Structures are given as structure tokens and as C-alpha cells.
């Protein structure tokens, strides 16, 4: 059984409405909403607007530019010549992108990248003279490197590459 239809997200509408300061419609629609079971038509068109609005999943052109820059940073930081400082810097850029974006998808992939870069940096900078520990760190770094490359790939896909 499948009773559902496509989700009616109205994300662009929500964003535009809020941008135009149409939040007054929320107050106007409040009495209808209080009934709880009223449909959109009964509440009036503006009442369908979320007070905060679902976020867009689509990255903006500027975010794609930022993601390309982050990807370039990551490529350098995780190369053979990468250092803890360069990984830290790449992580900072990824985290900043995660904080700044309004896209759930961009936020997630940027945050994941930042998280795994943080772990990668630790694995990179806690080199031990003990062969067993060094091997463990290398294995962890290799796994994280695969994850990081996956995040970068996901970023590119978000921007259609």
C-alpha cells in the first residue's frame, strides 16, 4: 500500500516569502492553524509558509565555488606533501562552509568532510616510533583518506560534476 504523494516542500516559496518579510502572514494565519486540521486553502495561501522554511538542497553557484576551493585544499592537504597544518586549514574551510550554507546537503557533506579531516589530522600528527602504533595510524589514515575522497566526490556531484 502506498498512500503518499510527492512531498509538497514549497521550499522556494518559503524562502521567497520570508525574504520578502511576509511573516505577517503567519500571524494572520495563526487562528486558522490553531484549528490544526485546516487545509492550505482554508488557511490562505501565505499560511502554508513555514515560519523558518525548509532548507533548499541545491547549492548556490557561490557554494559550488567554495566547494571547489575546499576540494582543492583537501587534495593538497591529503597529498604526500600534506602537513597537519594544511589539513587543519582545509578542515577549517570545510567547517566554515558547513556553518554558512543553507543547504542541508551541502552542510552534511561539508560537515562530514570537516569531521574526517579532523580525524585525519590526528592520525597524521600522532606518528609513533612503535611499529604497531605506526601501522595502526597508517591504516586509520588510509581509511579516512578513502572517506575524504568520497566526501569530495559527493561535493562535486552536488554541483553537477
Amino acid at each position, binding site marked *: *500500500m*502506498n*498512500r*503518499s*504523494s510527492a*512531498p*509538497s*516542500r514549497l521550499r522556494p516559496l518559503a524562502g521567497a516569502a520570508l525574504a520578502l*518579510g511576509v*511573516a*505577517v502572514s*503567519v*500571524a494572520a494565519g*495563526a*487562528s486558522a*492553524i*490553531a*484549528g*490544526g*486540521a*485546516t*487545509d*492550505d*486553502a482554508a488557511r490562505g495561501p501565505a499560511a*502554508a509558509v*513555514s*515560519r*523558518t522554511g*525548509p*532548507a533548499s538542497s541545491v547549492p548556490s553557484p557561490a557554494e559550488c565555488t567554495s566547494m571547489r576551493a575546499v576540494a582543492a585544499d583537501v587534495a593538497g592537504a591529503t597529498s604526500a606533501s600534506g602537513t597537519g597544518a594544511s589539513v587543519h586549514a582545509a578542515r577549517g574551510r570545510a567547517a566554515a562552509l*558547513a556553518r554558512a550554507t543553507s543547504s*542541508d*546537503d551541502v*552542510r*552534511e557533506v561539508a*560537515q562530514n568532510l570537516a*569531521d574526517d579531516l*579532523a*580525524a585525519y589530522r*590526528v*592520525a597524521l*600528527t*600522532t606518528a*609513533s616510533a*612503535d611499529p604497531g*602504533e605506526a*601501522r*595502526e595510524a*597508517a*591504516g*586509520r589514515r*588510509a*581509511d*579516512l583518506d*578513502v*572517506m575524504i575522497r*568520497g566526501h569530495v*566526490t*559527493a561535493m562535486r*556531484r552536488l554541483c553537477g560534476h
Partner: protein
Amino acid sequence: MARPGLREHARPRRRRGLATCVAAALGLAAVPLAVAEGAVTTLYVGGAGCSDTGSGTATVPYCTIAKAAKVAIAGQTVLVSSGTYTDEVFPWHSGVSGSPIVFRPAPGAAVTISGAKHGFTISNQSWITVSGFTIQGSTSNGIYVFNATGVTLSGNTVRTSGKRVSGATAYGMYLNSMTGSLVQGNLVTDNSASGIFVTNGSTGNQLLGNESSWNAYGYVRNAVGIDLRAPGNLVSGSRVHDNEDSGIQSYPGGDRNTIVGNVSYHNMGFTTAVLSNCSAPPTGNTAGCITGDHGIDDFGVTGSSVVGNTVYGNVSAGINLEGVASGTSTGFTIANNVAVDNAIGCPDGAGGTVKCPRTRGNIRVDSTSQLGTQVDSDLVNLSTAGTMMVWGSTSYTSLAAFRTASGQEPRGIQADPRLADPARGDFTLGAGSPAVDSADSGAPGEATTDAAGQARVDDPATVNSGLGPRAYDDRGAYEYQPSTVSQVTP
């Protein structure tokens, strides 16, 4: 005037204060909308005669959960009839403390959300409760939370999120900037990334009694049962097993977490399904890279407690602490755990790893993580000869040797804990177990109840040798329940 069948839907009598309306109009504050006195408290979804242009009553329910999520406000409960839905459920409003917006199946109903991007997306909305759903086959994370507080996720099953292909993987639950929330009694299984992922400043959350298992990327060892990248959370009473990577891990960002009373076992990867898309060694083995890792892994984090857990039969060191910056005090406590038969062999599917097990020992603290680490009152054992403990760069085959060299574990015990039936996942203690009535109840995070929610019990057949306010707490995740009880904690 009430219509037949709509008695719950009394006329709206909402009276919002002028100041609130003005604030909302100006977008100055996201004041949650709340149910007015006498207004409807229940919205219905699914069933005969449903309509998304209807009113969400019992007689004219909405067809989609998404529709109900769009209109539901604080204090309202959305009851969903049995069926499979393809909605991405995205609440448009917040609840308030004491009056959340609740989503749950109708009494006796079985509700599955299948194939949506996320089953539930709780983004910038707070005081939302999601209980009792099965969410499967989402193309992204099964449940996605961002920037929310007061969220309750309970009794849900979240499985088969994403695909085991790079770029298409997904977590069971992805919790980003979530605070003061409860994640309880969920089954999170067979997802293509970690089961429960906690990140980006999520703090003050309680993850209680969840089961997270069989999660795997499939091409790299990285899916964890519960993955903490954020500080100050409690993980308790969980069962985490058969994951591709560790059962529970705290990674950079995951400082000051309390990992107490969990069972983490058999995180040895999948031994029956050898995948062909593994990355090249040394990431994984040549015939299937899913190899498992630690029971509880703490990497580059400080200030946490790993207390009263049962950690059994994981492929690498059972409880692992490593990667703390050299010279930094870890502030770490490892106590009251039962750690048995970890890192004593590799599963069939892991035989091709470069070195398996990668690390050894029931408890391992690496050379940069010794400063400020306290290890005591644990019970360890190996059923075959092997590495019992690791302290720094040195391995020890017995607890006594470890104690002598490290000065740690003055109250540690090396003995068979008499676990009931580990092969069948029963890690309760048998009569006469040396774990009984011997824990340090003053250890940070030690709970007054065990992983099954049972109170601490003083076994009349065992002389109390514990420390702290109760001298009869048991080591490990489960409190032995004797047939005759002499004392129960209030």
C-alpha cells in the same frame, strides 16, 4: 459547532498576543505555534477516505505524513495508520517544552516510510517526537536532525539507508547540532554508513538503549554503530554489534562523552558476504574489506568515561584509547568494564588484512594517551592465550603483569565472568561471577540501573567487594539478578 466525527476539532480559539503577532510579523522570533485551549490535539493520517486537502480528522485523514507535518503545531499528535508511505516527513513548526509535536503510528498500526530521501527531516525545528516508525531504503540518512533541541527519537527502526557505493552512502540517524534530546530504544541496522552519527556541537543528548548493528560502507572500514564527533553526550544501555568498524567510537570533537553500561560485541565485519568493491589494501583485505574494529574506540578525544560496559569478541582491541596529543592529559576513566576475548583472531572475511588483528588486548592505551588515564576495576579474560592488555607500546599477556608495570588496575580482575551465552548475544552474568558486587559505584557515570534498566542488586551469596556509595554494583553492563534479593537501590 461540531460536526459528526469531528468532536476533537473544536473551533479555533487562538488568541495570540499583539506583541507575539508583531514579533512574528517582523520575523524577530520563531515563537512556536501552540494548540489553543479546546483546539484539536490529534491529526490523523492514512486510511479510507483520506485527502491531503481535507482536515486531518479521523474521518477525513490526511493521505501523507508530510501533509500533517506541514500543519502540526505544538501540542498536537499525528497518528498514522498502518501502511507504507514514501513521504519525506519535514515538520514545519516547532513544539514547545512540555508540548511537543508527536509523530507516531496509531495504536496497533505498523507504519513504514520507504524510499524517501530522509524518512524524517527535523531541521531548525525543536520539541519534535518521532516514535515507532520503520524507516527503510531512504536515499539519504534515515532520520536527519539539524539545529534542534528537545527532540525525541524513540522506538524506531531505521534500516537500509543509502547504498554501499561511494557517494551514495547514508547514516541511519544523522544528528547535527542537536542538543538536549533523547534517542532511545531504536533499532538502527544495515545502513550504508554509521548507524547513529552525532556531530557538529551536538551536546547534552542521551542515547539510551539503542541497538545498532550490521552497518557498513562495504568498500572501506568506517561504519560504526554509534559514532560521536561531538562532546558531552551520554551513551548508555546500547547494544552495538556486527558493525563494519567499531561498536561505539568517539573521534575528534567527541570529548567528554560518557559511555556507560553498553554491550559492544562481535564488531568483526561481515564474514559471510564478501564484497568485490573494496579499495586496495592496506585499507581492507583482498577478499572483502569489511573487517570490524574495536568494541569501544576513543581516538584523539579527552575527558570521557568508559564505565560499566561489556565488550566481547571484537576484532581489534576491545576498549581502545589512542591518538591523544602527546603531553596532553587525557582525563579519561576506564572502569568497571567486562572485556573478554577481544582481538584474539580474525573472522573468515578478514583473513586477508595486512595485519589482523590490527591491535590487540582487551584494553589498550597507546603511548600518547597514558597521561591522565585511569584504568581500574575492570574484569578481563581471554579464553585462549594472547594479549590481555596494552599500555603504551608494551603488550601484556596477564593482568598481573600489566598491573605491575603500569600501576593501573589495582582492583582489576582476570577471570571468567561467566557470561550466560555470548554466542547468542546473552551477556548477563551467571551465578558466582567474579563481576558480581565488585564494581566501583563511584566511577564517573556509573549508573544506578544496568543496561536492561534493572536496579543494582546486592547478591546475598556474594561478599561485597565494591567501592563507592554502593558496594554491590556489578562490573559490566548487566547486574546479576539473584533469585533472592537482599537489597535494591531506591
